[in-house]
């Protein structure tokens, strides 16, 4: 572990304060790490991913002996996650993309997500059919602009592996909650779509997980062109920007439930946010245009039978009673009078 350092001057204090946990977090800083062997493909993939992720990207140019997914199995590799954690504290980075190619797993790309300096979960994927950003002509997005993200498949909502992948990719490219955005600055889309879902996956996802191969993932990046449509909303046209590649899911680790619980804790909502209607819904309360809090009060259903209307002799309860008792012999009127009596008593 790193020593806890006491800042000696104002500049270093500011730098340390910037690393303190925040209620609303900045984008994750990602470190791109090269494993012992990276081929041409992986070098290109990492370079292009960095281009998409800039400025929150750090590149490790030297090779590193790192096998984060082998750490659980062998005692010798246990240093892998610990070195990831060390780099995380050193660079204030909370995500890693590791590229490594081997005979067993060619063009292997590993995404590691961390929480509080500890490894949360890992997703491993193989890269196929890679086309670099350079080789595709056309305009590229400006570094630092937020991408739009597009996921296409029902598996992103149902299958645990793909839910994890979606969450991982969103953390990688789009994990920053911003208050407002300049809409003309939305320059590119990252689209992640899946090959057709195998029939077995549709039935029982958990049991078939081990046997059926998971569908291929198509990772594409497009630039947007906003065309006038005549209305306020423009029509969008896309052109391929690159990188484009196909990913095949390999190994993974699930997050430790205890750690995940801590990681998904939400901050308490501010009073103004609650008034705006965020968070827990408050019924019958709203803020009007003047900023005044308005409430609606619901009273129960009024009992109109006991309502006192205009007093008249003819409407008196007892007035009609004596006459009817004498004259009427029917059951109906008898019942009526008896009920009236009950009410009176």
């Amino acid at each position, binding site marked *: 572990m790193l020593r806890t350092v006491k800042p000696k001057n104002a500049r270093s204090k500011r730098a340390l304060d910037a690393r303190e946990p925040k209620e609303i977090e900045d984008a994750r800083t990602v470190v791109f790490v090269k494993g012992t062997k990276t081929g041409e493909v992986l070098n290109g993939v990492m370079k292009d991913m960095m281009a998409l992720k800039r400025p929150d990207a750090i590149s490790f140019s030297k090779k590193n002996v790192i096998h984060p997914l082998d750490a659980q199995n062998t005692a010798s590799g246990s240093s892998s996650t610990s070195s990831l954690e060390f780099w995380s504290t050193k660079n204030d980075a909370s995500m890693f993309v590791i590229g490594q190619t081997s005979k067993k797993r060619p063009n292997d790309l590993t995404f590691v997500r961390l929480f509080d300096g500890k490894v949360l979960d890992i997703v491993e994927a193989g890269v196929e059919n890679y086309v670099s950003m350079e080789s595709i002509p056309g305009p590229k997005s400006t570094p630092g602009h937020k991408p739009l993200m597009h996921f*296409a498949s029902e598996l992103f909502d149902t299958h645990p592996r793909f839910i994890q992948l979606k969450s991982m990719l969103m953390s990688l490219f789009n994990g920053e909650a911003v208050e407002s955005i300049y809409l003309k600055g939305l320059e590119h889309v990252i689209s992640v779509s899946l090959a057709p879902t195998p029939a077995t996956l549709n039935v029982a996802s958990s049991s078939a997980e081990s046997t059926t191969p998971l569908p291929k993932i198509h990772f594409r990046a497009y630039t947007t062109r906003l065309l006038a449509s005549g209305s306020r909303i423009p029509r969008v046209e896309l052109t391929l920007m690159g990188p484009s590649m196909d990913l095949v899911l390999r190994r993974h680790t699930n997050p430790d439930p205890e750690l995940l619980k801590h990681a998904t804790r939400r901050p308490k909502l501010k009073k103004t946010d609650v008034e705006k209607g965020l968070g827990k819904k408050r019924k019958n309360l709203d803020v009007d245009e003047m900023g005044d809090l308005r409430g609606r009060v619901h009273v129960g259903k009024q009992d109109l039978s006991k309502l006192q209307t205009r007093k008249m002799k003819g409407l008196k309860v007892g007035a009609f009673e004596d006459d009817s008792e004498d004259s009427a012999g029917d059951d109906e009127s008898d019942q009526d009078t008896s009920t009236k009596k009950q009410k009176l008593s």
Partner: protein
Amino acid sequence: MDVSNILADNAQKLKSIQIETDTPLDIDTGFLTVTDPNPVDIESYESSLESYLLSLARTGTQALLNALFSLPTTSSPDGPLAQLPAPSTQLPRSKPLPKPKPLTKWEQFAKAKGIQGKSKEKRVKKVWDEEKQDWVNRWGRDGKNKQIEEQWITEVPMNADIDHDPRKAARHERKARVTKNQKQHEANVARANKSGGPTPSNPEREARKTDLERTLATTRTSTASMGKFDRKLEGEKKLKGVKRKFDPTEGSVSTEAKTALGLLSKMNSDARKTRLTEAQRPSKKSRTAHGDGGDPEDKILNVRKAVRFASKGRGGVALGREREKNTRGAGRGKGKRR
């Protein structure tokens, strides 16, 4: 007037931005993300992959942009900004939630008493100087707190010592304030660390330890001299007495008010101090029945004083013993002495 042309035109316009999907897309505008839950069209997927993916992405992006462009906007120097709602997808955080800063002793006190002063953040660094007609630093360079030290002439009181240096005195006072503040700050930091400190690892063991210590303390004071003349063992610690405990100065205002009011009502209701009317006074019969219980003023004979007088200060027991002896006969020797 025929509006069908205009309507058709409008529909044509809208057509270019409308999207048609079987299942509505799941849009998270907070994270600028759209998820398309529709199943893949296998035919077009297999015939031309790239164009199919492009059209799929276009549909999704158009849906997302439709949602984004209909959000409320605010103007800024760079152009209109769309106000994004909070994201609906929950992603794991990269760092834990920030811990609330521990309150200082003063802040605790102010909170308990409901004192609302200016917070540290709100307090401005500059203060208005009437003489200079300008804002000056509260502290630091040419600070207001150094004004007496730095002014070129200072009034000296009539009865001051010969070696009285007003600048030195002011400086001393300021330095004392600084050290006092430093001390308080350190105490606050220590308190903050202590409150979040480690809890006993083995509570059972701790309980047993305190129990033993208590037993030992009682045995040490259970000798005839209450432990005063016992032989001390080497390294034996001095017994600690019971420390007096006071209520904390900071408590809620309501409880404080309640205790004060309770005390007041007690004082008012004191029967001995209030003068009773003749009717209220208990009757003489009941008073005699009570005996000693009545008011000391009303009694004719003070029993305690009478006994002391009769026994010549030796007490009621001695008086009783003497009387017994006197009735048995005076030839026993004690009477001789007298």
